[in-house]
């Protein structure tokens, strides 16, 4: 049994008068890859931000390795939990190199600047995301997909134990979707870290996640292993849309009608 990394007890989260989850108990263990699915506006991002400690829940407590999140410093949390946001805004110009190095922020202090080791980690992350040639480019000259890879590179540089990702495959082409997913999932399993990601591609969840959270709406949440949860009935109920299930190469593939 792997140790529990993140635990939510009696969690109630609401946003704009809508309940996302009610009295929910949830556990992420090391080595697990969780997917989160739900229709638009179900509160996936809100729930992700709550688990990251970026907004307070209406009720309940979140524990990071048995410590209540609200008692930990932001700096400590940032060394353990990394978040990939759906949108990034940069009002000021910045190069790719500077942007990826910001991932080292949780490890810096007022008088300790990035050292050679920090730079090496940043270079490695850029290489993993196939961005090395762009290190001195201005971020504003990058395409949407390149920016997404840059944000993931910054997150790898941050080197957290738990990755909370909001639509990590956004803007990515086919090759880079698979590259990012393979890399993250292997990294999680190999380094015994943990991951929870919001996705809209059901087949991506089927392929890469061992567990899944379904935000059905009205505070109802289904969660469990991918095998049990990702059925035709559950998906039709989730999206209110007819779905077909095909078996291919030993995997279930879902196609919307």
């Amino acid at each position: 049994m792997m140790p529990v990394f993140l635990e939510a007890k009696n969690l109630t989260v609401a946003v704009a008068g809508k309940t996302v989850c009610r009295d929910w108990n949830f556990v992420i263990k090391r080595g697990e890859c969780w997917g989160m699915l739900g229709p638009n506006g179900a509160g996936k991002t809100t729930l992700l931000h709550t688990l990251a400690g970026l907004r307070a829940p209406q009720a309940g407590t979140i524990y990071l390795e048995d410590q209540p999140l609200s008692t930990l410093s932001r700096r400590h949390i940032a060394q353990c939990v990394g978040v990939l946001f759906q949108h990034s805004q940069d009002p000021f110009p910045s190069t790719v190199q500077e942007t990826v190095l910001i991932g080292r922020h949780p490890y810096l202090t007022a008088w300790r600047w990035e050292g050679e080791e920090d730079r090496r980690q940043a270079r490695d992350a850029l290489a993993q995301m196939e961005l090395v040639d762009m290190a001195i480019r201005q971020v504003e000259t990058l395409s949407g997909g390149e920016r997404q890879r840059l944000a993931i590179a910054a997150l790898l540089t941050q080197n957290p134990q738990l990755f909370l990702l909001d639509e990590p495959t956004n803007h990515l082409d086919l090759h880079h979707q698979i590259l990012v997913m393979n890399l993250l999932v292997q990294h999680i399993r190999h380094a015994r870290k943990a991951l929870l990601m919001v996705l809209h591609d059901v087949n991506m969840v089927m392929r890469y996640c061992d567990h899944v959270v379904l935000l059905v709406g009205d505070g109802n949440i289904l969660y469990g292993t991918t095998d049990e949860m990702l059925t035709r009935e559950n998906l039709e109920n989730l999206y209110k849309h007819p779905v077909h299930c095909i078996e291919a190469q030993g995997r279930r593939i879902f196609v919307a009608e």
Partner: protein
Amino acid sequence: MTPRVTLIGLLLLSGISLLSALALGSITVHWRDLWAVLQGEQGLYRNLVVDLRLPRAMAAFATGGMLALAGALMQVLLRNPLADPYILGISGGAAVGALSSMLIGASGVWFTGSAFGGALLSMLLVFTLARGRGSWTSTRLLLTGVVIAAGWGAVISFILAISPDTHLRGMLFWLMGDLSHAQNPGTAWMVLLMGAILCLPLAHQLNALSRGELQASALGVAVKPLRLQVYVLASLLTAVAVTLAGSIGFVGLIVPHLLRLVIGNDQRILLPAAVLLGGSLLTVADTVARTIVAPQQLPVGVITALLGVPVFLYLLQRGHR
């Protein structure tokens, strides 16, 4: 450019600007005479250099440094490249205080006190109103500040309209920014040094904050206390600068941008560099303002804009690093 080279270059520039401020003016002092005076030699120029030009040059440097630092902080705090130290109405509050005391003929400590009081009043007003019942967002803070500033603008126009003609010239000079009354730079230097010392440990957190509040929070920054500290620091720097020399435009907006175009947006270098470049720019501008039409003097705000605009446009045209 490495940080060290940049800062050494700017330190040299600061030295040169201060020395030329001592040498130039309605009477030019040869550098040999200047050296002799600085060595402590009594002579013809001692009175001119030490008693008249030195305090004014020091006041100009401190004012420029405070404005540029406050501008750099406001731009990150509001995450708006167009922000300057005056955008939240602090200079408007100070101007209403200063002009009212000119109108009733008060001077000296009453004048300084009412200008500084006006600035503080404006700072508290914006902070309280922007906060409302919840926490403040950058947009709400910006809008509240801009509206309060517009309110002060109306009061300033009202005071100008009812003032007798004899007061108008002095009032307009103050509004444009004028260092001729700034003879006591000690306080300004203390505030500038304290401001710089308090900002520098925050600089790496400001790097994260400039990427957005959520992002900064996820990177380990306690955003709310940081924003409060930066707001108070930037406001106090502005209040002292405006009290000392009126609303000198342009330095606080343009200096941080000039530096961003050349050295990038790392606040750990940008903030100290802004102090040095802002100080140098205002010292040079003030020297020019009291030299080109000597013995007449121009308001220094005119010169900062005339010097700053072409330099900025050139750097912008040249493109990014």
